[in-house]
């Protein structure tokens, strides 16, 4: 019986050519248009062009003479000498991170004085200024040597107009400083440090050796995944972003069609006929939930497949992508139920129309379907990333960037919570108006 409703609903949509145009053709066309125009802005390539940033190096050399380090190293033994050479973590950042082949595609850097850098930033010539403060080297060294590491601080000034790019730079710097804080840069650095400074190697080396070896393998891996996700970021292009952006926007349209079909069934009186039969309202609603689920899932699969076929976009992990599609479809199906029940409850209000013409564009904007939410004020960003389409979009983009699925659980839960809220509202409306239900 429930399946009969599901099949009927699916067949109605499949036979509804206008609906198909809106939920499949429109998002595909918009993806191409938006993706292509954004691609053009990005110097004609569909890849995000390299991001210009400035590095300001205000550091002074680190010294092992620092009293806290001395006391840590000596611990009753003879004091050691200052290192012969400066320990330069900034050049490490430049050489190891920014000169990395993958990152180089993404980021264009120049080392400038603070004044020059700020001038360029004000003139919108660069996206961000990364300033290494004077105490940076010392902080890092301390972090490496001490058992309770100090958080290493780097200052970042960003151009507020460059949402997505800012995120990339921020992510990059964060991953670097995190690694520094965790005592892990590369084995070479440590070894070099040890070589330059025999006493340290002897005294410090032994005490750290064990910890290093223990943590190195796992942390190294983590550093690697961070790098990999940066690499993933480089390949998220306009088409990819808008495939997800339009898919999550038009899945809302699909949900709104539930309301349209309910209204139609009330107008044609087939709904009355069903209600006077042996089928209960719950059969109707569960049937509709399943049909919306199937339709939404198919819609997402089709839209991502079209982009894959036409532009051979990268999907990231296919299973992760399918999981996000399923989760999103559950959210959409719940929304479809909510709209259906509202239509039955208050037929005079044309909820489908309001939803399609006012709410969807608004939600799409808020959720980042047109421009990345990173450009919006933080509080709005927070809302945008937690509404059904915004959270879905975050998850889809994450998957395509190669972010592991565990790290996307926040977005997934947000989508499902949206669904729960829709279902609670539906149940409330059903119990409030017994005559219809």
């Amino acid at each position, binding site marked *: 019986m429930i399946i009969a409703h599901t099949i*009927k609903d699916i067949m109605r949509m499949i036979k509804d050519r206008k609906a198909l145009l809106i939920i499949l053709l429109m998002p595909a066309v918009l993806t191409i248009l938006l993706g292509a125009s954004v691609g053009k802005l990005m110097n004609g390539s569909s890849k995000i062009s390299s991001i210009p940033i400035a590095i300001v190096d205000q550091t002074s050399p680190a010294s092992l003479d620092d009293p806290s380090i001395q006391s840590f190293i000596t611990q009753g033994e003879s004091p050691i000498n200052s290192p012969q050479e400066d320990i330069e973590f900034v050049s490490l950042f430049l050489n190891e991170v920014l000169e990395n082949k993958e990152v180089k595609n993404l980021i264009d850097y120049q080392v400038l004085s603070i004044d020059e850098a700020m001038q360029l930033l004000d003139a919108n010539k660069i996206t961000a200024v990364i300033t290494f403060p004077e105490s940076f080297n010392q902080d890092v060294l301390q972090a490496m040597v001490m058992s309770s590491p100090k958080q290493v601080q780097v200052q970042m000034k960003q151009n507020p107009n460059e949402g997505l790019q800012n995120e990339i730079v921020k992510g990059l710097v964060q991953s670097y400083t995190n690694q520094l804080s965790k005592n892990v840069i590369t084995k070479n650095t440590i070894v070099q440090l040890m070589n330059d400074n025999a006493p340290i190697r002897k005294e410090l080396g032994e005490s750290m050796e064990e910890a290093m070896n223990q943590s190195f393998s796992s942390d190294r891996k983590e550093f690697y995944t961070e790098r990999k996700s940066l690499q993933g970021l480089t390949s998220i292009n306009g088409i990819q972003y808008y495939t997800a952006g339009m898919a999550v926007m038009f899945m809302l349209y699909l949900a709104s069609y539930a309301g349209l079909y309910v209204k139609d069934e009330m107008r044609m009186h087939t709904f009355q006929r069903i209600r006077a*039969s042996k089928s209960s309202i719950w059969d109707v609603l569960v049937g509709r939930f399943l049909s919306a689920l199937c339709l939404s899932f198919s819609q997402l699969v089709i839209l991502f497949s079209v982009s894959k076929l036409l532009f051979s976009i990268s999907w990231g992990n296919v299973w992760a992508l399918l999981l996000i599609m399923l989760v999103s479809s559950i959210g959409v199906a719940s929304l479809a139920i909510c709209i259906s029940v509202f239509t039955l409850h208050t037929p005079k209000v044309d909820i489908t129309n309001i939803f399609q013409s006012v709410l969807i564009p608004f939600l799409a904007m808020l959720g980042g379907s047109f421009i990345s939410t990173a450009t919006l004020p933080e509080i709005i960003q927070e809302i945008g990333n937690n509404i059904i389409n915004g959270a879905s979009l975050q998850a889809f983009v994450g998957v395509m960037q190669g972010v592991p699925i565990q790290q996307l659980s926040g977005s997934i839960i947000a989508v499902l919570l949206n669904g729960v809220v829709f279902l609670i509202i539906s149940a409330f409306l059903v119990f409030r108006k017994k005559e219809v239900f």
Partner: protein
Amino acid sequence: MFLEIRDLHKKFHKHCAVQNVNLSIDKGEVLGLLGPNGAGKSTTISMISTLLLPTDGDILFKETSVVEKPQQIRDILGYVPQEIALYPEFTALENLHFFAKMYKVPRKNRVDRIQEVLQLVGLTDRATEKIETYSGGMKRRLNIACALVHKPELLILDEPTVGIDPQSRNHILQMVKQLSKDGMTIIYTSHYMEEVEFLCDRIAIMDNGEIIALGTKEALTNVVEQQDVMTIRAIPVKTTFKEQIEQLEDVTYVNCKDNSYDIGIKQGADLLPEVFTIAQNLEVRILHVEVKTPRLEDVFLYLTGKTLRDA
């Protein structure tokens, strides 16, 4: 008692669509519900079909309130809405299959039952066509077929013949007659007197939400037995003519449409000379005069002073 309606009321906001309706229907009976548009027939039927809750009163199906236990009557009910309640983008077969599932017709009987009802409504040849392509009459017939797939005990038809060709109408009337012969209990709503006269054992006449007469065809015509109806055609049309005839003793009502006047007169009274005098004084020319004994058609006129069609 198969179905019993007690003091049924339905208010929409302040407007009383149905009031004081009391009816009972025996198993196997065909009850006609007759009344002009807006009389409250569909509202009454919707309450019996559990689609609307009564504002007051109750409907008992086999002694159980359908308000409290709607599922009991739904299980044996075939409801044919006044509208074409079908999915226009589906074929007749698809529609029938869907509603058969709604009525839980067992899978193994489904195909046979669907073929039977298609035969019954004469649509076997067109069964695989989308019903968008159907004529009004064919849609009406399929509309009924969808309510018959599960062999209902009680069939409720709400104006099943509005706006269709005489052939389809005839087909439907014959079909309902046959279903009744096979033992189905039927409530048939219409504003066509002839249909109700042809089909129904008992007739309830509704107007303004109330039942104004209820009984067998014979009992109802008895109400107007003491009446004759004189029909006059006269030109030109003058309201004074109508008014002066109404003034006459022994005239119970005058109903005027175009140049035709239906005049209710006491049986045996001879009013012809008076009518001709009035006509002469007003310079109205009488073209045609006819005096007949009343039919069911005239009952409504007698009770409400209006014909079913102008109401």
